């Protein structure tokens, strides 16, 4: 009996130690690809990064040199359109959830749908926008009937809505009730008190949410393949096909030319630098307290 008991205790201690080792191992395995990706990206990308990359458009295939200026400008245009659509609608939805719909079945349904929409594959979003804008000739829809920067921006903008909406809601719920009461007690109209007091108090958090959504769609390729389509030349018109950084990286990555591979790496490095910057900024803001000063 005593020996048996001893064995059991030893077995339990061994399992405990084994699981600890496994968990540490898992953590290491998870961190490794991250280090590998960043290391490889910097190793391959930094050497191809020069002024020409930012100033020039791509050279014809097979010629060396050239840059991605058209893709950088194009991404800027697309993200501008996306933000103009995604940010106001997302914030509006968040305000509804936090200020008007609290506790109602309707708000729960909206919240649930937003979370589900967040999981819809981006390629499907591209198909839907293709079908809605690119392939239809309708007077009701601007820039319809062909590939355009506008359709790409709409696809990205729609993808921003769920993230912006849910973070806005969460941040608004963190605003203390006392602050809302103070605003109401002053006789401010509801719209004024929501916009100038509640939303303003939560604004650092809301901006954080917008930046997260922004960083996410900035790297999206799939919804742009058959909406923005790509464009080898500089373009800023919403009515024309437009290049985007991730789209250009894809095209160059699968091309057979070494020079284009180098540009793809440089592009990926720029993209990731932007995203890491956004995520770090977000983390810095949130760690300082989203509602600094709010009691």
């Amino acid at each position: 009996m005593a020996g048996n008991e001893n064995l059991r205790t030893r077995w339990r201690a061994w399992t405990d130690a084994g699981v600890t080792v496994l968990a540490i191992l898992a953590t290491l395995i998870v961190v490794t690809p991250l280090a590998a990706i960043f290391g490889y990206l910097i190793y391959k990308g930094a050497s191809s990064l020069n002024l020409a990359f930012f100033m020039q458009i791509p050279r014809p295939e097979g010629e060396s040199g050239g840059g991605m200026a058209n893709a950088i400008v194009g991404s800027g245009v697309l993200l501008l359109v996306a933000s103009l659509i995604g940010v106001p609608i997302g914030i509006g939805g968040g305000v509804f959830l936090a200020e008007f719909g609290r506790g109602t079945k309707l708000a729960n349904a909206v919240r649930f749908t937003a979370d589900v929409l967040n999981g819809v594959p981006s390629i499907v979003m591209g198909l839907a926008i293709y079908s809605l804008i690119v392939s239809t000739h309708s007077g009701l829809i601007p820039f319809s009937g062909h590939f355009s920067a506008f359709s790409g921006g709409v696809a990205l903008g729609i993808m921003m809505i769920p993230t912006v909406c849910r973070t806005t809601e969460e941040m608004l719920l963190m605003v203390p009730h006392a602050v809302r009461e103070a605003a109401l007690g002053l006789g401010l109209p509801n719209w004024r008190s929501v916009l100038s007091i509640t939303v303003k108090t939560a604004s650092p958090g809301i901006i954080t949410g917008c930046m997260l959504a922004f960083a996410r769609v900035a790297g999206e390729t799939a919804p742009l393949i058959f909406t923005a389509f790509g464009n080898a030349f500089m373009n800023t018109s919403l009515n024309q096909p437009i290049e985007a950084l991730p789209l250009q990286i894809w095209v160059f990555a699968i091309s057979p030319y070494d020079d284009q591979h180098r540009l793809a790496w440089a592009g990926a490095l720029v993209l990731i630098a932007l995203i890491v910057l956004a995520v770090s900024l977000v983390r810095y803001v949130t760690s300082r307290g989203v509602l600094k000063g709010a009691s």
Partner: protein
Amino acid sequence: MGPGKEGPSPVRVFLLSRGNSAIADRAFRWLMTLCAFSIFGIVGLIAWRLMVSSQMTWSQFGLGFFYKSFVDPVNHQPMYWDPVNGYFSAVPFIYGTLVSSFLSLLIAVPLGVGLAIFLTEMCPRALRGPLAFLTELLAAIPSIVYGLWAMYALVPLLREYVNPLLTSLLGWTGLFNNDNPTGLGFLAGGVILSIMILPIISSLTREVMTAVPHSQREAVLALGATRWEMIRMGVLRNARIGIVGAIILGLGRALGETMAVTMVIGNTPEIHKSLLANGTSMAAVIANEFSEAVSDLHRSALIEIGLALFLVTIVVNACAQLLVWVVTRGAPAQAR
């Protein structure tokens, strides 16, 4: 000066002149409600457009599109996808999506849950922040960058070292026949997918594990349990529904992931038992063929694949969401 002492002051007169802004308030409320409702609208719009645009395939092939195959008139082998000659069947794409997604879960679930256990129960406090930040970063890397890395770093690694090793060790199972010299294929797709869904699984698992009340842990520890027994009985048992939710959410992401998979899976509409063979997936075929579709029927078939992907991810995400809500908020129907 300022608010007067006699009679109504200028301030009071001014405020009395302001209306009660009932109309502005109502308009504001409607506008915000409209924004919220637009989310329903978007989901509806996606479904409607995809259905309209895939009408042609639906009327020609019906449900058989998702399970039937054709016979090659020349060599009498089974054949699935030949856009030029008008043969369309989604079977190889469904197969590729399922194989690569489940392969990725097989790799990512133990690692993700292990990482979550390490972060919540074992990790020194000083390491917790940086590690959480690193996983957050892993989630923020765009698909295209994963794909680029996988194409130029992961695939050569698989081709030179991992695939030959797997063939020599496990070749007898038939799952690892190394007759593919490229290094691309289901395994490459599954590995890159697993790296991409790891952060989702581990961060959600962490969330539900933290939601388990401290008293549950203490109750088990008080019985003289070791740390692993405490984690197993006190934490994992209470959080298991949420962890399943996290895994399903990861699956949802894996099913629809496009760019990285497209770049490494091989893009061949064939069905092979070997994981080292070239294949393709639903999302990959859309990304690859849509802008160069040879006919309206081809385009419509791709949109129908997209519609199927949409419906499947909606169902998968809804299930996952419900499971996570059950754990973190008591009941899904309750507001916080």
